[in-house]
């Protein structure tokens, strides 16, 4: 302002033009730097990600040839998908379907196991996350150290993927659904604990003060002051988590932790290609049905919350 006062003052419109040009130049420079960084990172990660790898392919006449990996792989992808498709004809539909789902008894059992793993893991995870969420929320933690430890615990539990926990638990608790339940349960506890503690941090503290004034301990304050406030949110998050856990438990068998995943692995290694599509269809339908059911249930619960108390 003072510098501008010495020279002849610009008309406001000219001042605007000068400022506009300045800002535009700066924005352009920012864009340039950001895009150079982006493309450098893109190229580097494409190189790390094998985009420029060359591979040998066999031609129809038997000769070998060097090709880029992506054009070499795409026909193989098509072939693979074509192999997984079942051979269905309209006039022999029943027997074709029976052949496609030839292991349906085993699959049905495993499907029930998958859903039960998800159920049990959700139950354990809700329990763990619920208990840990109170010491892990800033406004409710009894002291700093408890807060720090419970937060780190929840972070480790949710940052390590459930498949890694499953690998560790399969070693400890041997192969079977128990390892899967514990693995998904631990991961769920971490993820839900964080969500719950965020809910806890947004509650009204006055009911807790009331309980404290009436002589309640820390547990009384949580039980009668905090829990009634957070319960509706917790139910909603829990149902969402159940959907996620059904997906997780359908693949966790890949490392031997029970459920349909082990059939995937077997079908892949025994080259039973049509089994893959059958299994995929089963998981797809199950996930759809559970998503739909839990959405209906969630809307019902939310509706109940808003409606007159029953």
């Amino acid at each position: 302002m003072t510098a501008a006062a010495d020279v002849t003052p610009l008309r406001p419109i000219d001042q605007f033009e000068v400022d506009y040009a300045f800002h535009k130049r700066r924005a352009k420079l920012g864009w340039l730097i950001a895009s150079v960084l982006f493309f450098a990172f893109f190229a580097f990660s494409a190189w790390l990600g094998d985009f420029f790898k060359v591979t040998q392919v066999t031609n129809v006449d038997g000769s070998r040839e060097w090709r880029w990996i992506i054009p070499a792989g795409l026909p193989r992808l098509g072939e693979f998908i074509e192999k997984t498709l079942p051979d269905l004809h309209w006039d022999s539909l029943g027997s074709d379907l029976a052949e496609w789902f030839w292991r349906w008894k085993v699959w049905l059992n495993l499907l029930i196991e998958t859903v039960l793993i998800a159920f049990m893991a959700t139950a354990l995870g809700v329990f763990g996350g619920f208990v840990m969420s109170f010491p892990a929320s800033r406004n409710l933690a009894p002291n700093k150290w408890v807060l720090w430890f419970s937060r780190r615990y929840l972070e480790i539990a949710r940052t390590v993927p459930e498949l890694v926990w499953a690998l560790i638990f399969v070693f400890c608790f041997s192969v079977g659904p128990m390892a899967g339940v514990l693995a998904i349960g631990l991961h769920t506890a971490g993820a839900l604990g964080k969500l719950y503690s965020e809910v806890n941090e947004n509650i009204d503290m006055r009911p807790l003060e009331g309980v404290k004034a009436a002589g309640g301990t820390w547990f009384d304050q949580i039980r009668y002051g905090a829990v009634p406030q957070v319960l509706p949110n917790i139910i909603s998050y829990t149902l969402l988590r159940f959907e996620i856990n059904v997906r997780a438990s359908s693949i966790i068998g890949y490392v031997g932790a029970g459920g349909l995943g082990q059939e995937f692995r077997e079908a892949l290694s025994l080259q039973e290609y049509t089994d893959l599509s059958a299994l995929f269809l089963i998981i797809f339908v199950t996930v759809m049905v559970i998503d739909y059911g839990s959405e209906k249930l969630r809307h019902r619960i939310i509706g109940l919350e808003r409606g007159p108390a029953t």
Partner: protein
Amino acid sequence: MTPTNAQIKDWMEKQPLAFRDTPAVRARKIGLWALFIGLFAWCLYDFNFSPERIWVGLQRLGTVISFMFPPYLWETWPEWLEVFTALGETVAMAFLGTVLGLIIAFPVSFLGAKNINRIFWLRHSARRGYDIIRAFETLILALIFIRAFGLGPLAGILAIAVSEIGTFGKLFSEALENTSKRPVEGVVASGGSRFQSILYGIMPQVLPVHLSIILYNFESNVRSSTILGIVGAGGIGFMLSDRIAGLFWDQVWTIILLIIAMVYIVDYLSGLIRTRVIGKWEGAH
């Protein structure tokens, strides 16, 4: 004025429903809890949760955890380089998968938005398409791509990219629908074409939302690309499952800690970008 116990008892007898649920509600609650406990108990039986098995398992888990301290450190530079290449591969998988998914999903997402695509059947088929793509587990996609492109990060990248098409398509089209109509009307009123009304009316509203969605998905893809390695799609997960298979628990814990550190750094950087870019745009409003 504290009521005596006798008074309280008296009131409870006069107005029982004020102190407890109606019989119907109570029956429903008891029924639900019984169902839950019964199912849980049956699971415990079916999955062989015997105390002995839990005890043995916990002992083994204790042994495994005892390898965490002191943390294992590789001694030579090539070994460290291998670890960091694997970590870099994991981030690269997440990054490229997100970008490739974004490139395809961004144009496609317009098909699923009510305020842009008015053709009912096209909009709904686009939305069902996103749902179907989302139903494919990333891990299963990775298994399919490994068949075609061999072991390595490329399969992971494509798996993430395909599953991101569905996620981005759905989230972007929802963001497009949640915009205000007024800027669009303004552009149309000053003579703008339909394309201009989208470009100047809708895009400025959704870009911050899109950016936030992209960053969030990138973070979550960093986590899932760790898993993809376990089935053979390269990166740190491959190394981790290799070390677990060889029972090198000390190295396993170091790798897990490095994964956690990597996730922290990625979350921090994306938080930085988010506050910088979105914060700046909010200032201009």
